[in-house]
């Protein structure tokens, strides 16, 4: 539609149009179980206003949502409930694990807490932080829009073993290939001179 009211067409490919529409209307289903949920509410409300990015319609019914936003500690008793909500969502669907707890269990390495929701469902984006700042969540939604638009494959997270985590050099070796672009990976442990140029 032109400004003067005259009709016009924009020729486009259908799949591109569909992706464009999906990316700009990611309706989240919030699953806030603890402190990260407060940060999520803050992101959704006036000051940070997630609706600027097309995610304003928070759906408390999984059938109407595209994006499952898991914000908080998931206990082992809660995990079947979360999995059921994931199963009830219609394709296409995406999952954001917000905060250390839902990404890896966080500080709660205990008898009752699930060590990361990726044990029970595929996850597209992990947002680090305890809790992540609202800007971090907004950044993750922007990244997710990029993923939706380009149809990028879902990457498997590499979970560190205890030995890998103990040593920062090994950490770099372990996640170097998957995290950084190939070619730039200085996976050989040869000192801090190589650490520049690591930013995404």
């Amino acid at each position, binding site marked *: 539609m032109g400004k003067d009211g005259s009709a016009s067409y924009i020729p486009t490919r259908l799949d591109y149009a569909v992706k464009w529409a999906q990316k700009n209307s990611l309706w989240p289903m919030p699953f806030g179980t603890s402190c990260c949920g407060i940060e999520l509410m803050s992101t959704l409300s006036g000051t940070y206003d997630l609706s600027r990015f097309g995610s304003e319609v928070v759906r408390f019914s999984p059938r109407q949502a595209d994006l499952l936003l898991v914000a908080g500690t998931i206990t082992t008793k809660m995990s079947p409930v979360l999995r059921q909500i994931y199963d009830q969502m219609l394709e296409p669907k995406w999952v954001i694990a917000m905060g250390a707890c839902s990404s890896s269990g966080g500080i709660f390495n205990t008898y009752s*807490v699930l060590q990361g929701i990726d044990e029970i469902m595929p996850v597209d984006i992990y947002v680090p932080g305890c809790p992540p700042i609202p800007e971090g969540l907004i950044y993750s939604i922007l990244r997710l829009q990029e993923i939706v638009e380009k149809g990028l494959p879902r990457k498997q997270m590499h979970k560190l073993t205890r030995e890998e985590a103990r040593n920062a050099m090994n950490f770099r070796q372990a996640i170097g290939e998957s995290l950084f672009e190939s070619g730039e990976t200085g996976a050989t442990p040869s000192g801090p001179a190589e650490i520049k140029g690591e930013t995404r």
Partner: protein
Amino acid sequence: MSVAFGVIRDRQDQLFLHLEQTYPSHRVLRDKIEEPILWLRSPDELVPMIEALRREPATQFDRLSDITAYDNIDHVDGPKRLIVVYQLYSLQHHTRLRLKIAIDQDESVPTLTVVWGAANWLEREVFDMFGIRFAGHPDLRRILMDERFVGHPLLKEYELEARQPFSDSLPVRIATGFESPEESH
């Protein structure tokens, strides 16, 4: 220091003296903020003692704040393995009292649901976490962990990271046949 704080401190001192006089054969201690702690000698004393503390005008402990327990595995508090802790509050005097009972793992404690209905879920929680049995409890089931869970996680021999995930959750069951103490009197 506010006036109210001084008044409550005075009442705590009075309560402490009163308890020492009334129960000369019990250990009565004070914690770091001067609140009295009364050690019971055996679980059988619990219900008569609590009813007396609730009834007497000098104490009038009419509210049960909490029931909890701890694992006395290092035997700091005597030879018995578990310590059950009752935290009482008096809405009349605004004072608090902690009752402690030492028990072995095969002993049970009489339930307080006959005095306070609120004890029902608190005792279920203590049972869930420590495996302490409350004799006469109407519905002693796990409350926090799944009902299929094996072991009692706050006992020190339970390994911290021993998770027991289940692929489905059990439907909620509401206990039937439970009457609150007021209705049954």
